[in-house]
């Protein structure tokens, strides 16, 4: 059988294909994005799309499930916060065709604003949960998840973490199984979540969970590896792989693939066969608390801690006190935080905002979160997707009520974020007459997650051309009478746009518009900027734009030509005209 080296995400996409999924909808988010980037490989067999946000994606996939089709939605951990509303009720109503929700958690927050443990969603929404620990399991568990969903009439949560989603391991493929779709028939008692039906459906869900626990105790998804009677480890997900490397060879394992509901009888039986039981899991004591509550003696978080990712060496150190033998060098690396790329259209915007000490800027999630880093330091807050506009509204209201009228409040978010959940914030500001200028940083792509299309980009996930939704038309429909569209790379125009918006007598909004320089299908006007050393006075103004290509050496500005794309933002801030663009 042919073997493939796949990331967990690629394997989940393959698993969806083999499981006979026909409809799939998602919003991109690290570390889940590549699942859907791989689904168009199977577009002859299944429809896949980027939805405007995770709630919409979940509802689209669930609608297809109601119609009897196997369907999929996927999101990063915080995406499930957005999607939580339909998820909780879908658990009551149950499924038609199998319905799987993939959540990709991000312990250590490689690319996230928090490290929430989404296993608790499975518990509180009452969803059976599978946790693969490598790419082969990603594929196999997807197929198992659809069988469980249909057998127990409930959506299934498949949870990965960054190291499952983004690690590659060897996978053997199977064949796709088609699942016939029955003719649709209306079923109000099941599918209408009215109180009367919900009362019944909640009881149905609880009954299903009793059966699911029996299933978990017998399922091959949970596996005992007896190697000795001294130490036993209960583990799941990537933590299982870490524990395998960290514990002595005579350690026995209860490797769980299904972690909600927990197979408590199996755990009790395993615990009775070992002298000491460890629960090895990342983040919260999700399993440990339940196992302890069942009266089974064990330890886990006492050693492993609640924060960040684990790895084999950390487990050895924390459980057995074995320090890693590292070498300490006499030289230290300084920080290398991510930064806006050279030529990033957001740079001119943030430079403009950074020049005004009376500006208060509520930011959002995306590449432009980096506008909060030094030296631009032009953002006051970042909370969540779509929060930029509405948090700004609250700030402005508080300043108004506390008499801090000198402060000028802006809400900023990107084009994809605008469609995700920024639009409602724009309505809020317009309708409730907020003293806020909403600004859409429109770079024509979903940037941070690696260039996914969105309703403003004109293409779909499967590569078809779509009618662009024009942000200015949306804002106009909300009641913005003064919509200023500006090229942020022109610093004078950018400053004027901000001042005009602040002076506007009618509701004003700004669209800061220039495509991301990394978009391949657009022809960019690239060049190089050079420093005339005889004109440079070493004032370091050019460093204030925070471009990785610009440094000052021996009191003269220097531009790294391998990085520079000739955007001229540094040239525009030079008081001596020492920087100019050469083709």
């Amino acid at each position, binding site marked *: 059988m042919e*073997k493939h*080296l796949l*990331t967990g995400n690629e394997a989940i996409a393959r698993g969806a294909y083999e499981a006979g999924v026909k409809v799939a909808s998602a919003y991109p988010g*690290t*570390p889940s*994005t*590549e699942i859907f980037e791989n689904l168009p490989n199977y577009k002859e067999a299944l429809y896949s799309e980027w939805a405007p946000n995770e709630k919409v994606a979940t509802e689209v996939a669930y609608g297809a499930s109601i119609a009897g089709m196997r369907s999929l939605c996927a999101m990063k951990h915080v995406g499930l916060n957005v999607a939580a509303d339909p998820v909780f009720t879908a658990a009551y109503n149950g499924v038609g065709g199998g319905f799987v929700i993939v959540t990709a958690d991000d312990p250590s927050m*490689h*690319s996230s604003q928090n490290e929430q443990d989404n296993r608790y969603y499975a518990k509180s929404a009452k969803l059976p949960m599978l946790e693969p620990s*490598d790419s082969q399991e990603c594929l196999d568990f997807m197929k198992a998840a659809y069988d469980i969903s249909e057998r127990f009439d409930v959506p299934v949560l498949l949870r990965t973490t960054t*190291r499952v989603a*983004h*690690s*590659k*391991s*060897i996978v053997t493929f199977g064949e796709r199984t088609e699942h016939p779709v029955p003719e649709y028939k209306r079923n109000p008692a099941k599918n209408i979540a009215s109180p009367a039906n919900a009362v019944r459906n909640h009881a149905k869900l609880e009954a299903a969970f009793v059966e699911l626990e029996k299933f978990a105790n017998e399922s091959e998804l949970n596996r005992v590896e007896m190697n000795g009677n001294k130490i036993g480890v209960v583990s799941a997900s*990537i933590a299982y*792989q*870490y524990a*395998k*490397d960290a514990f002595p060879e005579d350690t026995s394992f209860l490797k769980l693939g299904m972690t909600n509901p927990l197979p408590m009888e199996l755990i009790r039986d395993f615990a009775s066969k070992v002298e000491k039981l460890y629960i090895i899991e990342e983040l919260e004591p999700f399993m440990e608390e339940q196992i302890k509550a069942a009266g089974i003696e064990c330890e886990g978080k006492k050693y492993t801690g609640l924060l960040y990712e684990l*790895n*084999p*060496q950390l487990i050895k150190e924390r459980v057995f006190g074995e320090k*890693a*033998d*590292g*070498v300490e*060098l*006499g*030289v*230290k*690396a*300084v*920080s*290398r*935080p*991510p*930064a*806006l*790329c050279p030529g990033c259209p957001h740079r001119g915007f943030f430079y403009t905002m950074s020049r005004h000490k009376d500006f208060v800027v509520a930011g959002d999630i995306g*590449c432009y*979160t*980096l506008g909060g*880093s*030094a*030296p631009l330091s032009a953002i006051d807050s970042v909370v969540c997707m779509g929060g930029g506009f509405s948090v700004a509204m609250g700030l402005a209201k508080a300043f108004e009520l506390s008499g801090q009228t000198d402060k000028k409040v802006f809400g900023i978010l990107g084009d994809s974020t605008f469609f995700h959940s920024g639009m409602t914030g724009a309505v809020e500001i317009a309708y409730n007459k907020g003293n806020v200028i909403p600004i859409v940083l429109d770079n024509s792509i979903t940037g*941070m*997650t*690696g260039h996914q299309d969105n309703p403003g980009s004109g293409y779909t996930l499967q590569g078809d051309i779509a009618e662009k939704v024009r942000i200015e038309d949306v804002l106009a429909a909300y009641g913005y009478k003064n919509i200023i569209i500006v090229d942020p790379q022109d610093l004078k125009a950018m400053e004027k746009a901000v001042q005009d918006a602040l002076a506007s007598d009618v509701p004003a909004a700004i669209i800061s518009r220039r495509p991301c320089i990394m978009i391949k299908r657009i022809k960019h006007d690239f060049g190089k900027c050079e420093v005339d050393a005889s004109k440079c006075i070493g004032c*370091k103004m050019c*460093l*204030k734009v*925070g*471009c*990785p*290509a610009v*440094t*000052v050496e021996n009191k003269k500005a220097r531009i790294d030509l*391998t990085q520079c794309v000739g955007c001229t933002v540094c040239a525009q801030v030079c008081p001596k005209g020492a920087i100019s663009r050469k083709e």
Partner: protein
Amino acid sequence: MANTKSALLVGVGGQGAILTAKVLVNGLMKAGYDVKMSEVHGMSQRGGSVSTQVHWGEKVNSPVIGKGAADIIVAFEKMEAVRYSDYLKPDGIVVVNDYEMASSSIAAGLESYPEGCIEELKKHFSTYSLNAAEIAASLGSSKCMNIVLFGSMVKALGMESIADWETVIRETVPAKFAELNINAYRAGHTAVK
């Protein structure tokens, strides 16, 4: 775990660590090893510090390692070699590009680039340093810097015989860059002694 080897490929987002790791794992798979590899995506790719791990052997469990556990670090930028050096085993190997990239905090004048990175690495580890950027440029494109370093890595680990690396490179990189990258591999291989 005793019979596995692990490599850390470290550098700055956008330097091509993921492609290099792909060449390595394709060769290891052909040689019949169990392989796991861990990549980093998302925010840190934007000019931040990145690391890709490759772990191989008869049977591999964890795709990632912790401190003091790597057999080799291949650094695309010299300060990054220093940053991750505590992941090396005390008898580990460093292949380091004698190439300096200012971080955004250095560019902004908030911090300064550390002096003596390579000298310090040489004091503690078996260290191979080369200017892969210059070698790549002399071959026609600075883009193949990553495969120059890969050539040095194969030499440093003595892995020439486990796979036909030139064929692996040809099969892994886009066809129009195959010759360039094979030349880069050869140049990297001979650049270290």
